[in-house]
């Protein structure tokens, strides 16, 4: 397999195609438009469905239809457009049909700007739509990872009949990196027993989200909760670097983790014992692993391109045993590695003073 240079947006688009995407519906918005543009010719070339909808609202409901019809389907957008999809996402979650969404987050709130941020973590992870549900949310930090995730997202969505969101930003979307593109998957006709295909030779099926009886609705909710527990058990993803035994653990995801990685390299070159923990699945959040690390790390530094959103999940995961600093940048300001390095230096639990090394590793603090 050879590598090729791909722009993030196009790499995701192509990986979706190869992962079996059968129907795409979307609406232009920077910085994800290239994804739509790529699919606008790629999908028809393969005889698959592509439609530029009249709005994000229409797009998500077309996806709902296509998903109900059994297709591997997706949409892509960016922050304001994703806000418009919240009702639709809630319906899709309630109906237990699988779909994939790509959100290239930009500067908010409001019209904001086109610059990369991670300010929609809460919206995506905690549930921007009404009701109790959580999509699977994956945050790539390289183009290769984005492509791999996109390819795998449809399987994941299918397996749990859930929404899978790939949450990135213009940094990933606009960047070119070498990518080993996964192989084209063949489309196989499937009948998983629930999709709407016309009732020839079988009892009719209905896909809906209305349950006037609270007891019935509670059952739907219980089903969703069960599914989420299962997802929590199976689908936690994260990456680490020097995380075991470091003095300061930087927790960052997506493009922030890339910046942190450079800063950490610099810090380690300067003799600081710093590690990196990168949640890849934002939902389910790698809480267990973080709790374990918290029990034997002296300090955490959470770094996000927002005002401190994943920060809450880190705090929830760790409880109070480990002090947690926060470094955030808002509005699309992309900090360069040296700013993160500075924050690392400030956050170091016991900086070397007077030439005497502080102990590299604090006594483990037990979880109580």
């Amino acid at each position: 397999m050879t590598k090729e240079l791909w722009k993030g947006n196009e790499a995701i688009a192509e990986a979706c195609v190869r992962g079996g995407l059968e129907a795409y519906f979307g609406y232009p918005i920077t910085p994800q438009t290239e994804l739509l543009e790529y699919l606008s010719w790629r999908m028809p070339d393969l005889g698959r469905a592509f439609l530029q909808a009249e709005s994000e609202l229409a797009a998500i409901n077309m996806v709902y239809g296509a998903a109900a019809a059994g297709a591997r389907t997706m949409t892509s957008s960016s922050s304001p457009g994703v806000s418009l999809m919240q009702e639709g996402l809630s319906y899709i979650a309630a109906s237990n049909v699988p779909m994939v969404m790509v959100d290239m987050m930009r500067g908010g709130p409001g019209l904001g700007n086109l610059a990369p941020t991670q300010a929609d973590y809460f919206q995506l992870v905690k549930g921007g739509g009404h009701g109790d549900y959580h999509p699977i949310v994956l945050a790539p930090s390289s183009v290769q990872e984005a492509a791999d995730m996109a390819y795998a997202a449809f399987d994941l969505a299918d397996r749990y009949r859930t929404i899978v969101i790939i949450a990135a930003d213009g940094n990933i979307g606009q960047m070119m990196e070498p990518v080993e593109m996964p192989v084209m998957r063949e489309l196989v006709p499937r009948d998983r027993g629930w999709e709407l295909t016309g009732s020839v030779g079988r009892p009719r099926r209905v896909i809906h989200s209305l349950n006037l009886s609270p007891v019935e609705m509670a059952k739907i909710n219980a089903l969703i909760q069960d599914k989420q527990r299962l997802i929590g058990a199976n689908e936690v993803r994260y990456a680490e670097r020097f995380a075991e035994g470091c003095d300061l653990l930087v927790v960052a995801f997506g493009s922030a983790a890339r910046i942190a990685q450079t800063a950490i390299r610099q810090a380690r070159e300067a003799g600081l014992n710093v590690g990196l923990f990168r949640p890849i699945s934002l939902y389910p959040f790698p809480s267990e692993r973080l709790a374990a690390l918290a029990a034997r790390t002296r300090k955490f530094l959470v770094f996000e391109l927002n005002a401190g959103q994943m920060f809450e999940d880190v705090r929830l995961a760790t409880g109070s045993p480990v002090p947690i600093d926060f470094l955030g940048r808002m509005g699309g300001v992309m900090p360069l590695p040296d700013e993160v390095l500075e924050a690392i230096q400030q956050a170091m639990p016991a900086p070397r003073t007077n030439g005497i090394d502080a102990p590299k590793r604090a006594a483990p603090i037990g979880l109580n």
Partner: protein
Amino acid sequence: MEHQIVISGFGGQGVLFAGQLLAYSALEESKHVTWIPAYGPEMRGGTANVTVIISDDEIGSPQVRNPTDVIVLNPPALTRYAPLVKPGGCLIVDATLIEQRSGRSDIREIDVPARAIAQALGFPQMANVVAVGALAAISGVLKLETLERVLIAKTAKRPEMREANIAALRQGAAAVTTTQHAVS
């Protein structure tokens, strides 16, 4: 070794293409590489920027404050980036278009009359290629042969420019060897 390269100029000067030339060549040489354009308010018209990082190891941030290598193709680019070049790094200045100099003594600053060379070849828009040739020669980030091969492949649609392209690259490289003494 990690080369952090910034190329900056006006839109239309082939800044993004110059970056792609580097990026594809890096891929050819099986290096790690990232290519990222300036993003945000600068999108529409005006200045164009690209950062290309070429490394033997995995690359962290695709953008850096202090690049190791910079090509500036217009005066604002010089003003903005000259102070940022990492000490010991390279600064390629298109001397046809830029009168100012960085005034720094801790970097290797190379004046290349890129546009003039390109113009002489009949294609003024090839100044970007000249500058890339110069960068390759001075920094050693990539082999000139690789760049040539990629350049030929990437411009295959315009075979009439093939010779000029190669000449631009080579003359850029050559310009370094001749001007190098003056600055270092």
